[in-house]
Every structure is written in C-alpha cells, then in structure tokens.
C-alpha cells in the first residue's frame, strides 16, 4: 500500500480541562478526500486546525510529506511551523479575506511575500486561480463588494495559489445559504477530481457521501469510526454514528 502523505498519531489538544482532540490517529494518502463529520463541539475544527498549527497540539506527532513535528515538549520552532504550513492551505468558515485588498491582491500578495514571486508572476497566477473558481471578473473588487459565496471562492483561490499539497476545509459552507454553498461544493468537487488531497470538516452529507473517499466520524474529540462513505452512511457500526446520521439526515 502506498505510504500516507499525512500521518497524525495520538494528536491531543486540550483547552484548560476540556480535551478537544483526544489522541486522534489519521492517515491521508495523496489525492484522497476525507470528510470529517460529527456533532457540533466534537472537536472537528480543533483537529483540522492542529494540522496547520493554528492550534498547537499538546501531544502526539504530525507528519505532512517529509515535515515531522513532535508535540509535548515546548512550542514547535518557527521552522517546524513554516514547514508544515508550506504544504497546507486552509479555507475557513468565515472566509477571512483581507478586507483592505482587492480580490486580486488577496490572492497575489501572499505569493509575493512567501514564495518571493514577482508582482507580475503573482498576479498572473492569481488571475489563473480566480478564473478557476469562476471569478476573474471580480479581480478588482474588494471583499465587501462580493457576496459570501464569492468571498469564499476567492479564499479558495488564495489558498490554491500557494501550491498546497493538502487543502484543509473548515466548514466552508456553514456560513452560506444552501444555494450559495452549492457553488462552493462545486469548486471543491472539481478540486477533488484534480486529485487534490483534501480534509473537509463538513455538515454537507451529500458532499461527504459522493465526493470523499473516506468519511471519519468524530465525537467527543475522538474519531469513533472511519471508512468508505457508503459503509459509514448506510451501515454505521457505531450507535453514536447512527444517532448522528439519523439526526442530520432526518430519518
């Protein structure tokens, strides 16, 4: 079997006494799309944020590509943080575009600062990514002039322009109307078919079922089961998974 591209082992994150992420193990192979589902407050977002160190795990080991970091003995060094983040792109629930930049500059500036690309080069790439998400026409608009769905697509373009090996999606459609969410899911679906490796925290069961290769169910900080979408959705082993699914699927 091909070696995994991402390997999280025993990742644990505590907030005070609360264990948000409880010794989670997860392997992701290149090109794989894994959806993480589960009830609110289960630690899904905390877990995915551990992967690019927006939350620093208290324990465990994380490897992405050839960058490995062990947690538990002090803060990770800046070099470790950079090495992990260089391989990941993240899309947030609240978009988090830079409001004082146009769409084009939102996508171009990080490339110039991090990859030291020239302005022309960065803007050319930015236009290519904006075109890919269908928003070339909004290049000169400020985020405030764009709808939520457009802002999220710009945010996806911004992340893609950094050449990530792994895309992390933290409930990318939760802040949007279902109809608008569909256009985001469409972009994600096309990324998946381009073999982007993706970890997606989502409440969109249709996406989890039809786009992802695997579904992981997270409850109380732990992944309680993981498997093919069909197996999890149609024939969950865990009683807790059954309860969750019947609640969200309304059956």
């Amino acid at each position, binding site marked *: 079997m091909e070696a995994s591209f991402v390997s999280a082992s025993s990742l644990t994150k505590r907030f005070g006494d609360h264990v948000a992420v409880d010794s989670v193990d997860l392997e992701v192979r290149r090109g794989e799309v894994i959806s993480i589902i589960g009830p609110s407050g289960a630690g899904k977002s905390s877990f995915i944020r551990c992967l690019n*160190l927006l939350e620093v795990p208290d324990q465990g080991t994380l490897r992405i590509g050839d960058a490995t970091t062990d947690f538990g003995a002090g803060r990770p060094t800046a070099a470790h943080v950079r090495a992990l983040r260089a391989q990941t792109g993240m899309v947030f629930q609240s*978009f*988090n575009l830079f409001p*004082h930049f146009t769409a084009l500059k939102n996508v171009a500036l990080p490339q110039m600062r*991090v990859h030291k690309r020239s302005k022309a080069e960065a803007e050319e790439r930015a236009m290519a990514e904006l075109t890919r998400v269908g928003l070339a026409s909004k290049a000169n608009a400020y985020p*405030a002039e764009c709808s939520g769905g457009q802002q999220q697509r710009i945010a996806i373009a*911004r992340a893609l322009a950094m050449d990530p090996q792994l895309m992390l999606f933290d409930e990318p459609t939760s802040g949007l109307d279902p109809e608008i969410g569909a256009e985001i899911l469409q972009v994600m679906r096309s990324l998946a078919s381009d073999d982007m490796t993706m970890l997606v925290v989502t409440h969109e069961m249709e996406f989890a079922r039809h786009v992802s290769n695997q579904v992981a169910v997270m409850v109380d900080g732990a992944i309680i089961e993981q498997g093919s979408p069909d197996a999890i959705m149609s024939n969950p082993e865990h009683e807790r998974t059954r309860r969750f699914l019947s609640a969200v699927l309304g059956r």
Partner: protein
Amino acid sequence: MLDVLGYIALGATWTIALTLGSAAIGIVLAVPLLGLARSRFRVVRGIYSSIVHVIRGVPTLVWLFLTFFGVGQLGITLTPVAASLLTLSVIATAYMAEIYRGGMQAIPAGQWEAAGALNLGRFATLRDIICPQLFRAVSPSIATQVIGLLKDSALVSTVGVTDLVFRAGVMTQYHAHGLFMFGFAGLIYLLLSIPVAVFSRSIHARITRKYAIA
C-alpha cells in the same frame, strides 16, 4: 485693536507646534508601547498597564508641574517649551497606545489566522495585513485624541509658554476686556480643531465606503 488680535493669534504658533509635535511623537512611540501590551508574558503586559495607568491617572497639569518644577530640582533645567513638549508627548503616547490596543482587539482573529495559514511571516503579517487595518480602525480615535491634545496644550501657558492662552492673559492684564481676549483665543482653538475633524471624517468616510471597515 488689530495688533491686540495679532499678538494673541501669534500664540497659535506654539499651540500648533506643541499639539502636532506631541501628537507625532505619541503616534510613533505608542507603537513600541503597544509591543509591551501584546507581549506573551504577563509581567510585561503588567508593566504596560502600570505605565499607562500612572500616566493617565495623574492630571496633565500635575505632570507638567512635575516636569517643569520637579525635574528642575534634580538639577536638570528644562525650558518651558521643552517641559511642555515632553509632558504632552508622554501623555499622548499613553493615550495613543490605548487607542492602538483597542484597535488591535477590533481586528478579527481570522485575519491573523488567515495570514498564519498562508505562511506569512510575523513581519509581513504586521506590515501588510494588520497595520493597514489598524490604522483605518483607529484614525477617528486618533483625530479625537489630537483635538484633546490641542485643548490640553492650553495648560502650557501656566509654565510660561507664550501660547494662545498665555497671550490672551497678557492682553487682559494690559487692557482688561477678558471676555473679548479669551473669547478670541477660544475661537482660534475652535478654528484649529475644525481641519482635524474634517480631515478625519473624510478619510474615514472614504475607508468605510471602500472597504466596509467600521
């Protein structure tokens, strides 16, 4: 009549110089002070709050007298203008730092997170992402503070700086008509504050329209 008005109006030179001088120094020196406020270490943050609390908790006039008369006793003689500039600058620094601190809290955590997730370094994050938004968020408060400094600068007349109030006082002693003399000085303060307010409002309106930053 005209030479009386001219004599008083000339005081605006010191009023303006001390206001702008202390504002500029405050705007710059508040940045390192903000660094203390945002330190990871609680002790350093404690030092920041103590400094700001002490500076803001003592009346400006008392600071001015402490600087002018008190420091003189220590063997360092400051001219009235130097003592005034020093006092107003220190006070401006403390207030500006608090304004910056409030502005930083107004920047959503998501901005830092997005910058971090994109792997922007600390310097680039501050320069490209945080500072421009901070400046936009605090510009109205800074303008208010500059108008406050303009009015506080009247205190420097008590240590002998020949500002608007000092000169209005001199003219009152020569000619009486205090109502007229100080009324005229007050009018000039009012006129001086107008450009600051108008400037700030126009910048802010432009920013709010364009970027939708409150």
